[in-house]
């Protein structure tokens, strides 16, 4: 039997179905002691809050910061007075048991959200259901072992709440199918992040009868076949092979040089934003780190990170890269990235204000701490330093002179460092691009930060979404500045790369190679895909 659902997460899965039945509805029970029920509910609520705090932490580790924010919203909803008042008033006035009060309140709020004239808000009904299920599990002592499985399965249900999906073991849960659901739901987003094929909206075709039967799921087309016959199984296996082949095709590029058909080699690096990303970059075979955003050290901290803390982070990345180059961008705080302890004055126009190298040159003691940490770590790998937001020659000179003071101090203290460590700059202001002939005489390399370069060249605030039509990232003005910068770099015998978002722009790839860009630095997950495009290119 073949059923058409909606695609929510791509991929092929063939396995037995595990149908997770809906909880039996809770019957209305009138109690003699309502205070006792209020107390039971309060205990359950505290326990649920503790579980959510845990879930935020574990999800951050498995699915990333962005996805973990959902459970922060659950924490807030669990504290919402409308929700809590609705429950307590049922307990006090109707004298019902706590389970029933939660169930009824959940229904009221779910239908309230479902009626809203807005897809995003409609999907929030899942969040109400999620926190309510959590409370009910605690109140009824239901252990959620239904989701634990030792054999590969396709999980099926009316719908899964996000906190259930977040807990799935991806080596056992091969696919997800649901009766209802929305492709914008967090369950769908989590499935995509975890790489689990998912088909939703199977409606009434999907029932408890499916439990234990074999199903074939194509998450890309939304097709689900219950008890596939030989021919259908073969067809799905073929699709699975094709999928593997495409993945393997990228795999074959692992360890291969990034070279065009006509023999032009380019350095293909990755951008990272924390120590853990370094391993991901290596897994994806990045040839180096083109941009290590050091600001996470400052943003995650309540006070200036010490030299020791920074040294450990830089050393860990240097060692993980095992001799491949790592370009550390020095402190790039200010504008949209704020850390309270810097105590920066509020500005009318922060994008053009006290940020990045400007802070470093104004507060050399902060800068020195970072440079000392980088130089000390340079003894453990191949590090490079890159100054952000340069507009004038004197800034580069001043930065280099502080770096040389740091080297001198380390030398006197007898601490090891790489004395040939290159110092380059970001070209992300039109000023820097225009005087790149002068800067190239004193910098060891250039890296084009195309996001800021676009914003400053076109005078378009990239945080303002209403300006989208004016923010043409392929604007001739930006492309000309890139060309000038690369030409000036080569005239002076230094290399020039791109570490902004444009580096992964396949429409511009040919242009970049033609003008002689030496390095491209992209998100770790884009490395192999970009290598494939480059090796297929004939200039």
């Amino acid at each position, binding site marked *: 039997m073949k059923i058409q659902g909606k695609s929510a997460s791509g991929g092929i899965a063939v396995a037995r179905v595990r149908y997770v039945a809906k909880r039996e509805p809770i019957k209305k029970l009138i109690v003699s002691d309502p205070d006792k029920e209020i107390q039971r509910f309060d205990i359950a609520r505290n326990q649920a809050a503790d579980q959510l705090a845990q879930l935020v932490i574990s999800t951050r580790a498995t699915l990333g910061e962005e996805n973990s924010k959902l459970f922060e919203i659950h924490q807030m909803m669990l504290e919402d*007075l*409308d929700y809590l008042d609705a429950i307590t008033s049922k307990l006090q006035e109707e004298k019902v048991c706590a389970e029933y009060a939660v169930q009824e309140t959940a229904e009221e*709020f779910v239908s309230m959200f479902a009626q*809203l004239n807005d897809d*995003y808000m409609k999907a929030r009904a899942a969040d109400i259901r999620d926190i309510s299920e959590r409370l009910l599990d605690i109140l009824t002592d239901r252990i959620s072992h239904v989701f634990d499985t030792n054999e590969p399965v396709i999980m099926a249900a009316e719908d899964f709440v996000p906190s259930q999906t977040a807990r799935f073991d991806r080596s056992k849960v091969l696919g997800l199918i649901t009766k209802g659901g929305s492709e914008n739901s967090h369950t769908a987003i989590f499935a995509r992040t975890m790489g689990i094929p998912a088909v939703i909206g199977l409606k009434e075709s999907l029932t408890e009868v499916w439990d234990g039967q074999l199903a074939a799921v194509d998450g890309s087309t939304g097709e689900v076949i219950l008890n596939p016959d030989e021919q259908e199984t073969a067809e799905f296996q073929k699709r699975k092979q094709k999928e593997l082949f495409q993945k393997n095709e990228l795999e074959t590029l692992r360890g291969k040089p990034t070279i065009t058909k006509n023999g032009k080699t380019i350095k293909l690096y990755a951008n990272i934003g924390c120590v853990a990303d370094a391993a991901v970059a290596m897994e994806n075979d990045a040839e180096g780190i083109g941009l290590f955003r050091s600001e996470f050290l400052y943003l995650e901290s309540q006070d200036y990170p010490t030299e020791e803390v920074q040294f450990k982070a830089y050393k860990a990345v240097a060692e993980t890269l095992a001799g491949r180059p790592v370009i550390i961008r020095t402190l790039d705080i200010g504008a949209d990235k704020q850390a309270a302890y810097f105590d920066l004055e509020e500005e009318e126009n922060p994008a053009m204000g006290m940020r990045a190298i400007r802070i470093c040159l104004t507060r050399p003691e902060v800068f020195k701490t970072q440079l000392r940490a980088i130089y000390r770590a340079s003894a453990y790998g191949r590090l490079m330093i890159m100054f952000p937001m340069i507009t004038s020659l004197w800034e580069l000179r001043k930065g280099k002179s502080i770096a040389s003071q740091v080297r001198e101090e380390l030398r006197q203290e007898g601490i090891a460092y790489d004395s040939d460590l290159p110092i380059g700059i970001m070209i992300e202001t039109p000023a820097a691009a225009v005087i790149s002939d002068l800067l190239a005489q004193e910098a060891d390399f250039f890296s084009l930060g195309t996001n800021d370069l676009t914003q400053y060249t076109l005078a378009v605030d990239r945080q303002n979404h209403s300006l989208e039509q004016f923010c043409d990232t392929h604007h001739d003005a930006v492309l000309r500045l890139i060309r000038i910068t690369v030409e000036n770099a080569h005239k002076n015998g230094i290399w020039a790369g791109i570490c902004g978002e444009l580096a992964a722009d396949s429409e511009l790839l040919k242009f970049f190679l033609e003008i002689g860009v030496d390095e491209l630095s992209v998100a770790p997950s884009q490395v192999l895909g970009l290598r494939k495009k480059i090796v297929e290119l004939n200039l």
Partner: protein
Amino acid sequence: MKTISYIITDELGIHARPAGMIAKLAKGYKSEIKIGTSNKMADASRVIGIMSLCMKQGDEIIVTVDGEDEGEAAEAISALLKDNL
């Protein structure tokens, strides 16, 4: 009583996170703070209530602050709106 009016520029409108931020902030003041549009107002300390207003990009939102710390509260709300929406 203080009244703030603000046009939402964020493309997502007042979705769950900013709603949570507003509620958290409003809970911290003694003043009675209401938020909404010309049609419907909600208690700003209640996250679900704020979300159910479905306020979108381009909508004009109105915040009223009434109470002993209204000056301070209005300033804080105003800054939050400007920074996040």
